[in-house]
């Protein structure tokens, strides 16, 4: 090591391959791929076995239904990857819905102006969450349980028994219009695709996104390498608020009705979809294509089951079971793989594995998870 370290010409020392596994293995053995495969399988099955599923309306309605979840899942994915959670998104949807209604009906503002103000208020709601989580350093689960009630309460309080329903046809139609006549893609997919591209870039192809992952894996180390942990989290909560508010506008226009109780319980659906899409609740892991597939999967299953005349309770059971199975399967597969590897190497005292042992190993390794 006598030559210069800082400015040594390249190529004098050893070089490394970029990947330890071939491309197909990296692509196929992922949670994301599993969700996408399942989605394709369910669509294929439903097309052949569920009456009316291959009809022209199925995907049109499907997209209309899941659009708010798709939208909110984008920032929520990033929030969860940093290891935080936002339970208040559905309340922001409700609040934004009420604001659009009131600003339009009472203050006489046009829909775009009212919408813009609603998005700003949504961003402020997110900023309040973000401030408490990122700068006051309160646990996000507790903070957003509080704001879940607070924002919903403001929405309900502002509106009371009134429901604003007279929105200009131009706008309510737009919410349901198709991008191309006779195709299944409603207009709401346009802003979604724009946002999706933006979020994919932010999360997977920008320095900001790398910071998001690092914060989730090890926020102290991220802080030490110059990632502004607090600001990153703050911005993500702001985005979650703003996007939720946008979803609230869509909600209002799609149903032509501004109500404080719009989208009640949506937060759990969004989180379920995000987790189903392969995002780790402990942060640090996840990808947006998996999340989008996860949202679609829930939508397609619900749609197919409704066509088979199942009521909401059975659908709930299936979605809940899917969520449980999806997390169990990862740990089950890991465990099976370990067992397999050990089998292959022949027997030792370890062939009589006990739960205790697995637990200890898992615990030493589960630091990865956290």
């Amino acid at each position, binding site marked *: 090591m006598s030559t210069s370290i800082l400015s040594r010409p390249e190529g004098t020392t050893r070089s490394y391959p970029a990947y330890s596994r071939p491309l197909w293995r990296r692509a196929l053995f992922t949670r994301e791929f599993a969700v996408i495969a399942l989605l394709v399988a369910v669509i294929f099955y439903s097309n052949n076995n569920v009456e009316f599923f291959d009809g022209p*309306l199925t995907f049109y309605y499907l997209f209309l239904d899941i659009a708010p979840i798709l939208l909110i899942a984008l920032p929520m994915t990033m929030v969860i990857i940093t290891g935080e959670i936002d339970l208040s998104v559905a309340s922001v949807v409700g609040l934004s819905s009420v604001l659009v209604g009131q600003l339009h009906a009472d203050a006489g503002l046009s829909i775009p102006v009212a919408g813009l103000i609603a998005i700003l208020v949504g961003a402020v709601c997110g900023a309040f969450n973000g401030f408490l989580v990122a700068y006051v350093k309160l646990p996000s689960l507790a903070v957003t349980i509080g704001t879940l009630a607070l924002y919903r309460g403001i929405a309900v309080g502002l509106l009371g028994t009134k429901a604003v329903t007279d929105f200009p046809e131009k706008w*309510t139609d737009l919410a349901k219009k198709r991008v191309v006549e006779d195709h299944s893609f409603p207009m709401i997919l346009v802003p979604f695709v724009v946002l999706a591209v933006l979020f994919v870039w932010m999360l997977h192809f920008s320095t900001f996104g790398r910071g998001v992952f690092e914060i989730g894996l090890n926020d102290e180390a991220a802080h030490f390498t110059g990632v502004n942990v607090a600001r990153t989290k703050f911005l993500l909560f702001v985005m979650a608020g703003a996007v939720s508010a946008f979803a609230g506008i869509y909600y209002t226009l799609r149903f032509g009705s501004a109500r404080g109780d719009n989208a009640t319980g949506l937060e759990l659906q969004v989180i379920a979809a995000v987790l189903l899409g392969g995002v780790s609740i402990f942060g640090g892991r996840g990808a947006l294509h998996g999340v989008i597939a996860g949202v679609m999967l829930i939508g397609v299953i619900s749609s197919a089951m409704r066509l088979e005349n199942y009521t909401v309770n059975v659908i709930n059971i299936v979605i809940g079971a899917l969520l449980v199975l999806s997390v169990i399967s990862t740990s089950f597969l890991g465990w099976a793989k370990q067992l397999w590897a050990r089998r292959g190497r022949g027997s030792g005292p370890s062939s009589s594995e006990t739960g205790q042992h697995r637990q200890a190993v898992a615990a030493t390794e589960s630091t990865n998870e956290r």
Partner: protein
Amino acid sequence: ACGGSDSDGGSGSGSDGGSAGGDISVTFLPKNLGNPYFDISDAAGQKAVESFGGTYEQVGPDAASPDAQVPFINTAAQQGVNALVVSANDPEALCDALKEASDAGTKIVTFDSDTNPECRDLYVQAATSEGIAKKQVDLIADQIGDSGEVAILSAAANATNQNAWIDLMKKDIEENHPNIKLVDTVYGDDDDQTSFDKTAALLQAHPNLKGIISPTTVGIAAAARYLSTSDAKGKVALTGLGTPNQMRDYVKDGTVTSFALWNPGDLGTLAAFAAKALVDGTIKGDEGDKFDAGDLGSFTVGKDSVVLLGEPFTYDKSNIDDFDF
């Protein structure tokens, strides 16, 4: 057969029976599942549909909100069911979905709670809103001696029919009962626990309260349960819309003197027959159209495509044992 349901609005002429019954598919979409009121009406609807050889389905959300109802309307449109019988959680929010279903050839019947008239083919109304409102005001006035403070325990804050009744009740009280003062309206969201706790809060907040009107079956049962276990039992009157099975104990123990309701089963039956009549072309939903509703007799479509079941019926100690729903 229950009193109040035998409509005399329209003679039994012009009925050619359920001839074209064939294979009519009718889907019932209540406000939410697990609501006893709709369980009764939908069960009767099922019986009616099966009586004319149609296929019956009941679907619905687990919470009473319009956004949760829309996917089920969409699904019905996709399936191309012949008729959809829906109780609307919001007059406006369901409209577009219903219109699309209508475009797909589905006949839309609303019952119990209406949408805007242009969004459906027919509304099967249990009783006129004026009638329902007046009935309840009369009952409470009777029970509290036509003077004192009363409060209303409603369902969801945005419930269409509830709000319409509440407005009419306010007007009626103002005009005809100057000594009655409506001091508060609270919302129990058609949830047992919330309604129960709101009743307790009403009594706390208004020590001089003399009566509670709860125009919803969930609310009145919860309020009765609270009253029956409190000091206010017998001192604070309670009336509203309730089902006999839920209210029987409270009528007998004196918590409640009397309450009102039509027969929700008849409402379901009438909605089913109306759906059938629309599907097989007997009626179009225009004013003056006549159709046959099985045991209930014949009905005529009124203004705004509304079919009226009858007037609410009053239940009290003397007659409550005659009913089982």
